[in-house]
Each structure stands twice: as C-alpha cells, then as structure tokens.
C-alpha cells in the first residue's frame, strides 16, 4: 500500500475545507486561504476534480464520454485537474470549517465560519443542474 500524489491537481493552499464524492467526481467548497500579505481569505469556490479518465488506448484528443474508463492509478500524474464551477441559485458565502456531503446527486453544505463567526446555514446543491461551463482552476 502506498500514497500517490495527483500532481496535476493544483489548487491554492487552503485549510478547513471539506471534500466529498459523487459519481466519479470529487467536490470541494471554500476553505481558509492565505491571501496577499499573509491575510486570511475565505473562499467561496466550488471545485470539482474529475477522477474519470480516458482509457490509455484512446486518442485523448478524440475521446468522448462513452470511451471513459474508471480511475487508472498508473495515470495519476497525467490528467485530473481541479475545475471551478459556475454556480447558479443561492450560493453559500465564503467560509471555512464547514461540512460538504454528497447524498446521491445532491451536495449538502452545513455550517462553517463566515465573516460573523460560526453559522448554522444549510444549503443543498443539485449536481445535475450545475452548468457545464466548468473552467480550469488555473
């Protein structure tokens, strides 16, 4: 047994950030980030990491969704990258130390520290209604 770093998955350093999975994707929201001059910044980004990768035998440029195979550890350092998702509806404000949990096609976000301190705000996010115009994090 050993760890493998997914070197292609780069997002800004952060703490107090939850991670949950639904289908072949990991989802993360917010967190405590270090801004300019070592000031703390709370994030309000929804990040997605797609763990479903094209099969090595496929031409990567021409691969389509039906040719995707499950995670292949030998390709860990090649493809998965974080995407920010343009969200709609009533998104949570920036926060850290909250929970984010997937139940089927819904993400549930509870609590966390916002500008005013701890909160018990409770949000849901419908994955199926997320826009497809994801953007690479960097």
């Amino acid at each position, binding site marked *: 047994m050993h760890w493998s770093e997914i070197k292609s998955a780069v997002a800004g350093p952060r703490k107090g950030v939850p991670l949950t999975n639904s289908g072949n994707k990991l989802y993360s929201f917010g967190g405590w980030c270090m801004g300019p001059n070592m000031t703390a910044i709370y994030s309000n980004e929804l990040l997605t990491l797609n763990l479903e990768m094209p099969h090595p035998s496929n031409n990567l440029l021409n691969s389509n969704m039906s040719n995707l195979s499950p995670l292949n550890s030998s390709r860990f350092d090649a493809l998965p990258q974080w995407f920010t998702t343009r969200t709609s509806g009533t998104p949570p404000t920036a926060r850290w130390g909250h929970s984010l949990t997937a139940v089927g096609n819904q993400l*549930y976000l509870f609590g966390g520290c916002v500008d005013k301190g701890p909160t018990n705000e409770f949000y849901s996010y419908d994955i199926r209604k997320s826009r497809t115009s994801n953007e690479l994090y960097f």
Partner: protein
Amino acid sequence: MWSVVHARGPSPNPRYNHAAAVYDQYLIIFGGVAIFDDKNSAYYNDVWIFDTSK
C-alpha cells in the same frame, strides 16, 4: 444550482470544524466548535441526523 435548505424543527447550533457523513439517505453531523464571545467557545459532541428523502 444552490438552494437554501429550510429544515423544520430544531437544528444544530452554529458551528465549524464539525464532521459530516452519509448513511443511506441520512446526512449525519457530529461535533464541531462554537464561539460565544471573544473569550468563550465550546466543543460539541452532539450528533444530528437529517433525512434527505423528506
């Protein structure tokens, strides 16, 4: 799309650094930290269950 969940009845107090997990259709929250003022905070050990099917 994000939505605010309006749960009926009592709900967990404001908190951060809690843990959450899923069991079947149930969302379960445990522990965390609350801040009451500059000098007072509390660590929680309560468990809350939310039924996402209702």
